């Protein structure tokens, strides 16, 4: 997929030590870099976590972000995978207001998006959806006409296709 020039995906492999998220977050705040999303989780290697960071900025700014991140001792490696061919996914949970009359219409929309309904209550239901940003945004738009009560998003995960970075 093609990213707009101001949005970059950075993947940072970090030592899984206390405070490492704080070090990274503090760096972004201090240098005035704008994070759109950040996700953290374990990797296949013990003791190493993976951060997927989506940042806004011109190429020079993002290059500074990458270099500054690389300076953090607990950051093992940083890649800007924006230009690479990547698979990127985000998960969202959406609580939609429902009535007995519109429930089936909502279910139809959810099916088209290959999303799942994971909870049903008398006046609402929760939709679980996975996909790229465009897909999620389209679904939000469609569901918003029914009334959205709550949204929880994970932020973006990304991985280059084929040979992994580093």
């Amino acid at each position, binding site marked *: 997929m093609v990213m707009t020039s101001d949005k970059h995906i950075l993947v940072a492999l970090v030592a899984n030590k206390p405070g490492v998220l704080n070090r990274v977050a503090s760096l972004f705040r201090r240098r005035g870099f704008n994070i759109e999303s950040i996700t953290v989780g374990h990797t296949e290697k013990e003791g190493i976590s993976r951060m997927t960071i989506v940042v806004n900025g011109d190429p020079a700014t993002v290059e500074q972000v990458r270099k500054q991140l690389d*300076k953090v001792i607990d950051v093992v490696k940083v890649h800007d995978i924006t230009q690479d061919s990547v698979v990127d996914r985000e998960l969202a949970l959406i609580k939609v207001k429902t009535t007995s009359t519109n429930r089936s219409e909502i279910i139809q929309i959810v099916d088209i998006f290959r999303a799942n309904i994971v909870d049903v209550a008398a006046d609402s239901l929760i939709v679980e959806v996975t996909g790229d940003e465009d897909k999620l945004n389209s679904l939000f738009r469609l569901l918003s006409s029914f009334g959205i009560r709550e949204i929880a998003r994970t932020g973006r995960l990304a991985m280059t296709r084929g040979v992994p970075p580093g």
Partner: protein
Amino acid sequence: MKLTGAQIICESFAKEGVEVIFGFPGGSLLPFYDTLPQYPQLRHILVRHEQGAAHAADGYARASGRAGVCCATSGPGATNLVTGIANAYLDSSPVIALTGQVARPFIGKDAFQEIDITGITLPITKHNYVVMSAAEMAGVIKEAFHIATTGRPGPVLIDVPRDVFVEEAEYHYPARVDLPGYKPVIRGHSAQIKKAARLINESRRPVIISGRGVVISRAYEELRELAEKAQIPVITTLLGISSFPENHMLSLGMLGMHGMAHANKAVNEADLVIAVGMRFDDRATAKVSAFAPKARIIHVDIDPAEIGKNVRVDVPIVGDARDVLRDLNKEVVTLSRVEWISQMDEWRGCHMAAAIRDGEDLIPQYVIHSICEVTQGNSIIVTGVGQHQMWSAQCFCYKKPNTLISSGGLGTMGFELPAAIGAKVGCPDETVWCVAGDGGFQMTIQELATITQERTAVKIAIINNGYLGMVRQWQELFYGRRYVATPLSSPDFVKIAEAYGIAAVRVRTRLEVVPAIQKAMEHDGPFLIDFVVEPEENVYPMVPPGAALADLIEAPRTQLVAPGSDRVSE
């Protein structure tokens, strides 16, 4: 063998060659202090305020080239270190700060004297640690010294809960560190070096701008070889002063806001800037968009993040200044550049470097110049921040490597006295002059007691003009001479010194200057001179804030137009 956490710290410090710790005890550090007498090779110097400990460790590190160590207790002790740690961070000084923390069960409970010092120092340390068990201690200390002293040096803080000091663990000092995320690049990329050499060989008007990185990597000989071989004038940043002998034909002195007119002019006219171990600080570049407008730029720095941060760079070279210059020297050709060098001589001739005007009045420039004359340039000069700092940079001829210690990046008033103590402890055979302003001196004046207790033979020159001089100068030039909060009443510094048991004299005229300095030099032990100087003397040349290097003011004028918002340019 099992040792306590405190013993492991001391053993490890000894292994790292630590000879002195600047510190101040307190509750959570008590087990550490109780252990110190078992290690007589670790000298402890009691400061009077923890800020002094951090600055002294910084001064020690800069003068000696080894890591400086300071310690403070939890809570206020630790927060008092903060300014000193930040100062070391901005000037890339290898400082190890050991702080006590409340015992592990109390962490997070807002216990007495508990503060999150690792959180506080996150953005001002190269790295920091909380040691949650004695078993990790040796490894942490090994890493801390490695991180502090290699690559681009910087401060590392180690926070130790009180009960970890007394916990026992098997002691084994690791031979090496395993830090997959920390591998500084030392050797420059050969293709980049060839590219840089080609630019140097082709250029007609090159200048070198040498920064603190050259001092840190002791690349003096390599820098000199490059300058002489390719006939390139050498300009320094404030902290690059003494990386190149100032009495050398190719030396142009300092650039920047209060740099030499000819140095700034040379940068403005150059077709190639070779920047080595400097970071294009705004005080050095002035208006960055107008910096070196005709030049291509080669930037050598060990920190990749510095390259391209402030200015566009044509040839970046990541590496240690010494290694890179050594490799570069093999590639550059011997040249004469008669035209460019004689242009330098012409500019030097019409812009006096540090003109000291004649007269009876005691001007600060004359004081600094006289310290240089009397010591024959054989002294380490340690300064605070402000006018006296700029005069110290301008009027002393630095011939020996690493002889100016000054707070550059953070600009910390009060740095001078404790840093001078550290410098003298680190280099006991060198003469150390602490040049202070009457304002900054009072910020850390309590360290006079440390000098007395430790018999540290620091010579102190107070440039006493009765003002917070640099701020007053800005008020005079840009704020319609409205001297708000800058007139300064001071105690009788001679009496103060005497009360601390330090010999002192006051000097009011030019005639007394040299004899007083001679007396200080002959005196066995610390000595203070209170130089009561011309109150409204200004530092010139000056590039007004927000202006370009080319728009430098040489001759005093009564009033200048404030260039836009001062906050932005500051």
